[in-house]
């Protein structure tokens, strides 16, 4: 009993180690990016492309300002609200479509239309409907992020193993038990990657919508930086947005996903693990 527990603990520690290792590799990639950036700076000068360290310094100055936190918080809140709505709507719709072919047939053309409309058009429409409010941003995020989640979940539900469903039925599982013990577990493996993508696009779309609708937040700050031709500040804001996204991805999305993908990793030899 205790050895099993110790084993489980070791296993988990091992995964944390792996995770840190992957963070290390990510850092190396970022360093390479910064080097390229520095080269660009030396080639084109301060006005076009400020040095990465200068940008970092500008970013730190912004980060030291409580008002800036408020702006970032505003954007984050809008992005997360829109993301949560999109996740709920996309997951529910995707499940329905994955389990019922008729729903899928109805949903597919709607999806094509939704995906065909450029996000910028949605921003314009939302601005007309909601004016310069949170509603504009959230609606745009919702429209941009829902299809991603929907498609991921629907694909998961469609590719579920019907043999397992039959097995569960042979052991007396009703539809609800089959959904909770098999369907959702299988879909989760598709849901998490989709959520990662959706969260990323939620942030990006939120910033873009803020900029265009002039509703404050990081997008608003970017607009101000552009008006002042302050490239360092604009880049600093971009840096902050990206940093927020990376933080969410590595503290939330990746750990949860690796927990769900444990069995897949089990079959991989050590060196190949990501």
């Amino acid at each position: 009993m205790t050895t099993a527990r110790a084993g489980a603990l070791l296993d988990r520690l091992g995964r944390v180690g792996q995770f840190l290792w992957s963070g290390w590799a990510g850092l190396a990639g970022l360093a390479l990016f910064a080097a390229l950036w520095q080269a660009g700076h030396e080639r084109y000068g301060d006005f076009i492309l400020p040095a990465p360290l200068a940008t970092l310094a500008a970013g730190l100055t912004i980060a030291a300002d409580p008002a800036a936190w408020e702006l970032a918080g505003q954007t984050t809140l809008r992005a997360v609200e829109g993301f949560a709505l999109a996740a709920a709507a996309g997951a529910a719709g995707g499940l329905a479509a994955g389990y019922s072919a008729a729903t899928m047939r109805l949903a597919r053309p709607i999806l094509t239309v939704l995906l065909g409309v450029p996000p910028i058009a949605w921003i314009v429409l939302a601005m007309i409907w909601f004016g310069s409010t949170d509603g504009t941003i959230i609606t745009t995020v919702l429209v941009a992020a829902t299809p991603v989640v929907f498609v991921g979940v629907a694909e998961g539900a469609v590719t579920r193993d019907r043999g397992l469903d039959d097995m569960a039925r042979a052991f007396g599982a009703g539809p609800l038990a089959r959904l909770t013990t098999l369907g959702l577990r299988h879909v989760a493996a598709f849901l998490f990657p989709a959520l990662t993508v959706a969260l990323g696009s939620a942030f990006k779309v939120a910033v873009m919508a803020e900029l265009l609708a002039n509703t404050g937040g990081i997008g608003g700050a970017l607009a101000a930086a552009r008006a002042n031709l302050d490239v360092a500040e604009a880049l600093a804001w971009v840096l902050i947005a990206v940093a927020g996204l990376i933080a969410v991805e590595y503290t939330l999305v990746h750990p949860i996903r690796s927990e769900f993908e444990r069995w897949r990793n089990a079959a991989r030899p050590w060196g190949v693990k990501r």
Partner: protein
Amino acid sequence: MTRETTDAAPSLTLSGIGHAYLGRTVLDAVDLTLAAGEVAALVGPSGCGKSTLAHIAAGVVEPSRGRVARRYRRHGMVFQDPRLLPWATARANIAYPLRLLGLPRRERRERAEQAAQRVALDRADLDKFPIELSGGMRQRTAIARALAIDPDFVYFDEPFTALDVALKRRMQDLVIEAARGARFGALFITHDLMEAVRIAHRVVVMDAHGRGIAGTRAVPGKPGGRDDGTVYRLVAGFLSDDPLFRHIHDIDERRTP
């Protein structure tokens, strides 16, 4: 246990079963009755509808025609392929039906480990995922899963094909033991007539095209009471003298031009 006394209350009755997949009839007018505690071996050429019949009997597939009457308490099932949850460890897989029954975690764990022991699965292997197990281990996990719920009837669909000779015998002995102790009755699908004769009270031969049951033969003696020589002689006798068994290995010759 005497068969005559239990014949009165059959554990499983299939009457007039017919089934079609996408309009193609694969089963028609199948009648089969199993006495309580009886182990019946179901044999027939590949593709004649044995698995389909077992699925219908176990309630996995709704038959297009006919009725199924089950008089046992609870059944377990071993499918032709293991059908394990890829994301769950062997232990969790074995415990899956117990989870469906709503048993507490601790009891699930204990009963899963007992069942694993019955099929000679190592404790160390119980923490592995199916993808890390060998084919035979997966099959034994699936067998343990069927036994963990303490069934009084088990559907076996060619359960021992991936096992080596020694393990196969051991698993067969498990079924024989269960039949002798009246722990469970079984519908045992197999291609191996030796296996059928060794473990069953009765061999049921299915029609090559799923048109009912071609015939059944009671096997002399009792499961577990027949030694290897007897089994060999019985099988040789069936194959050489009994017209019922003439077509059960036919499928290959039919297909080759």
